[in-house]
């Protein structure tokens, strides 16, 4: 094996912790990520975990990135190999010149290592066992001891880690001091016995600013609190359950009447996804802002109600934290694979509004906006999250709110309005051409404004009708309404290349950080690309004009079938040849390396001078 010099890098590397699920490593690993943030250095952590509670392998990856690249990078510079089950795979994953950190209590045969990496052995079990007798403590403090050793190896400031521990165990002095003791136990051992620091180092910087560190699911749940959701009905499903958990904890802090202590919200764990969406539909019909959070299998179950929401025109907000499908698929892996399923959910001719946030800050904003849109448009609004945004802490701009902002409750006719002379109330009557009719809440007026809501066809006054022209008139109005939606939803954001170019790229959602980074890599390879980040469906007219302005456009997405591309082709009548799919769908988050590789290779082919045909 060739001599490989160890990787040397300050504030730009990837550390991966390989652990056993349920071993209590998560909090130590998260503390590692947070303490680097305290150095003013951005990090992007990702959980890689199985659909299991205890015993199976789990990984936690921390990308240290002073440049602020928050997408997954790919590759591992330092492996903290704490799981014998995955040892061989973990060792193989280390980049040449990388580092291996392992528990050296038991001697390992040389064949278990690699010659092109730096092996760092710390007898974690021996240190732990000589200090602690309680098995539970041994398990937990072992994690803190390796955190201490990492601190020394990466030249991290122990005071910043101590500060974090102090914040975490505030008021629990015993836990606080024992954790700090364990931290120093590991750090001191490393300083005395190992060459510290190694080639990978954390150096204080000022690149974090006022950004916050939050999971997308929590941010979306907070958006629902700020957006005025009062009813949440849900059924547990990975990776969306933490939306409801977060909504519950946010509401406990923010939504109780200060005088009576009573709840200004109602959360119901449904018996299934059908009940969850039914509760949302019933609450919204009755004038409350309601939402559910689910994932792909839940969407499949909800589709009948989604059709009712579309046809009977009842607001609903569905947060879909996407995971790899089809069927049970890979429940703990990320994908953007429900684009078509949500855009056209339910039988018959239906179309639904989709919002695609790129990160927690947008998840917060779009979640709040979803309730305005649902009530204005009187239909289902999907907030399309995914596991990568939803279940990982992401460095994100701070959440913002305007105190002057009022909720847009849409076209709701009040008792006073119904009593106005000459006022004509027809539940499905389009009075001003935007395709959106007025509705009334149940119980509004003793004699006016009541109607019978149904999923069957009816005329403009909500009277049952199967007359062809009456049905078609209603379906056409729904098309008009969807056109109205186009100008209400978040617009695409365009960023042009430094130099004029004939090529563009379209992307959305959690692909954004990897895409932004890939653009830089591609530029350095001489490829210029204008980019358009789509943030909602129906597509704004700028999507079609962006495509028209370029010879061809790459569409980057995280599914097998190029679902967004199909939707663009179908909805905008684009020649499919002009949209080149760049697809990543193995369940891991898309990386800049992948995007730059796929687009770069395609671009390189274009630059090859064609060989002249030779007559044979």
């Amino acid at each position, binding site marked *: 094996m060739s001599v490989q010099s160890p990787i040397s890098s300050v504030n730009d590397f990837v550390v991966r912790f390989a652990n056993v699920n349920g071993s209590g490593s998560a909090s130590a690993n998260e503390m590692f990520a947070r303490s680097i*943030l305290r150095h003013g250095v951005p990090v992007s952590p990702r959980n890689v975990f199985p659909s299991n509670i205890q015993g199976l392998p789990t990984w936690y990856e921390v990308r240290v990135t002073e440049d602020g690249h928050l997408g997954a990078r790919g590759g591992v510079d330092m492996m903290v190999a704490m799981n014998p089950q995955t040892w061989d795979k973990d060792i193989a994953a280390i980049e040449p010149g990388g580092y291996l950190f392992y528990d050296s209590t038991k001697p390992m045969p040389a064949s278990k290592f690699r010659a092109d990496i730096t092996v760092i052995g710390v007898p974690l079990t021996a240190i732990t066992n000589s200090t602690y007798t309680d098995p539970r403590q041994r398990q937990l403090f072992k994690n803190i001891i390796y955190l201490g050793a990492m601190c020394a190896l990466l030249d991290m400031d122990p005071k910043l880690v101590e500060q974090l521990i102090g914040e975490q165990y505030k008021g629990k002095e015993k836990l606080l001091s024992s954790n700090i003791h364990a931290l120093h136990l590991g750090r001191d051992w490393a300083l005395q016995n190992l060459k510290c620091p190694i080639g990978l180092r954390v150096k204080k910087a000022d690149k*974090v600013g*006022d*950004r*916050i*560190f939050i999971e997308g699911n929590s941010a979306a749940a*907070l958006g629902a*609190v*700020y957006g*005025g959701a*009062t*009813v949440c*009905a849900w059924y547990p499903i990975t990776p969306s359950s933490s939306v409801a958990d977060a909504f519950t904890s946010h509401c406990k802090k*923010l939504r109780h*009447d200060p005088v*009576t202590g*009573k*709840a*200004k*919200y*109602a959360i119901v764990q*449904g*018996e299934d996804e*059908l*009940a969850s*969406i*039914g*509760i*949302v*539909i*019933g*609450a*919204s*019909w*009755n*004038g*409350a802002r*309601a939402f559910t959070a689910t994932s792909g299998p839940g969407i499949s179950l909800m589709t*009948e*109600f989604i059709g*009712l929401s579309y046809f009977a025109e009842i607001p609903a907000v569905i947060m879909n934290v996407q995971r790899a499908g089809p069927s049970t698929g890979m429940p703990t892996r990320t994908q953007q694979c429900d684009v078509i399923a949500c855009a056209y959910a339910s039988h018959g001719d239906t179309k639904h509004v989709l919002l695609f946030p790129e990160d927690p800050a947008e998840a917060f904003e779009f979640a709040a906006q979803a309730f305005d849109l649902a009530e204005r448009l009187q239909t289902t609004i999907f907030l399309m999250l995914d596991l990568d945004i939803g279940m990982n802490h992401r460095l994100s701009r701070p959440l*913002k*709110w305007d*105190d002057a*902002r*009022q*909720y847009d409750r849409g076209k709701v006719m009040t008792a006073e309005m119904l009593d106005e002379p000459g006022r004509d109330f027809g539940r499905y009557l389009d009075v001003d051409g935007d395709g959106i009719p007025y509705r*009334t*809440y*149940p*119980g*509004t007026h*003793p*004699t006016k404004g*009541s*109607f*019978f*809501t*149904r999923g069957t066809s009816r005329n403009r006054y909500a009277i*049952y009708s199967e007359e062809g022209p009456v049905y078609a008139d209603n379906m056409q109005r729904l098309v008009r309404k969807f056109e109205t939606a186009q100008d209400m939803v978040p617009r695409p954001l365009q960023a042009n290349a430094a130099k004029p170019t004939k090529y563009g790229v379209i992307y959305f959602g959690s692909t954004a950080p990897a895409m932004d980074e890939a653009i830089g890599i591609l530029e350095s390879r001489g490829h210029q690309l204008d980019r358009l980040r789509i943030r909602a469906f129906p597509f704004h007219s700028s999507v079609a004009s962006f495509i028209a302005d370029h010879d061809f456009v790459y569409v980057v997405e995280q599914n097998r079938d190029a679902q967004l591309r199909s939707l663009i082709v179908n909805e905008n009548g684009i020649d499919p040849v002009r949209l080149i799919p760049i697809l990543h769908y193995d369940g891991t988050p898309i990386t800049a390396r992948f995007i730059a590789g796929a687009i770069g290779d395609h671009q390189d082919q274009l630059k090859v001078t064609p060989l002249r045909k030779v007559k044979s």
Partner: protein
Amino acid sequence: MTYIAKPKFQHPGLPKNDLGFTHRDYEGKVSTLCAGCGHDSITASIIEACFELSIEPHRVAKISGIGCSSKTPDYFLGNSHGFNSVHGRMPSVLTGANLANRDLIYLGVSGDGDSASIGFGQFAHSIRRGVNMTYIVENNGVYGLTKGQFSATADRGSKSKKGLINSDSPIDLVAIALQLGASFVARSFSGDKTQLVPLIAAAIQHKGAAFIDVISPCVAFNNHAGSTKSFDYVREHNDAVNRLDVISGRDPITVDYAPGTVQLVEQHDGTRIALRKIDADYDPHDRVGAMSFLQKHAAKGQIVTGLLYVDPESDDLHSHLDTVEVPLNTLDAGDLCPGTAALEKINASLR
């Protein structure tokens, strides 16, 4: 199809209730069900109960699933909002509606296909949660709109119109409602309006999940010899445990009852139900006793009707969730949005 316009004319001499409404004010569109359908009698009983209780019609929300029974909310309380939702999903829609506005009266109308088959789960869970509602199943043991298939409440051994014998065990929704903790459980017969009207009135006044199973013969597909849901069969096998009168308010009872034959049940809102006992030993406060009574009589082929169980100390989902007294749908941004100051604190805690 409601193609016949109902005349708006009202006879000036029609009796009026406390609010000055007549029966006509509680009616809806003309029924499109078959002539003689038991469901139309239930509709009439609902109208009668709402009239007698002097309910403001627009303060009722009528919610149903899909099927013959679920069409009926269009035929009563024309000034109420109605929601003919999704097959088997009335309970979840009603639960959501109730969460949004606790001040309205919720009337859930369902059928045996809707509640015992496709929506069996939703039926069970809405009862478990104690949603404040009146849940009426118009039970005919048959799928009428699709021309006569057995439903899950059809008795084993009963014969379909086409001559098929049902070999599956029946689901007794009353027994299940009792087991699931419904705080008001009754069974009645669409042909017995004097029993049904006060049951509906008492259920409406009950706070919590009130369930009424109403045997309602299908004249088109399940009213023949060999059916256990026909008019003749139910009349012959009806075993009423009690009759009841609803006495609104706290007025002294003026109805003259023979001593020892009446049991007074005071409900949460102060209204009282006077139960005229038919079966002297029957105690409607004993859930376990009711379940056992029901099973014993079912084994003998008897259909037990009446108010089978009532919990006078019942509560509902809103009290379990400890929600504010005002309807959630009346809260605006000022009530619901924590504002920028709170958000700044949250941001700070995430650094």
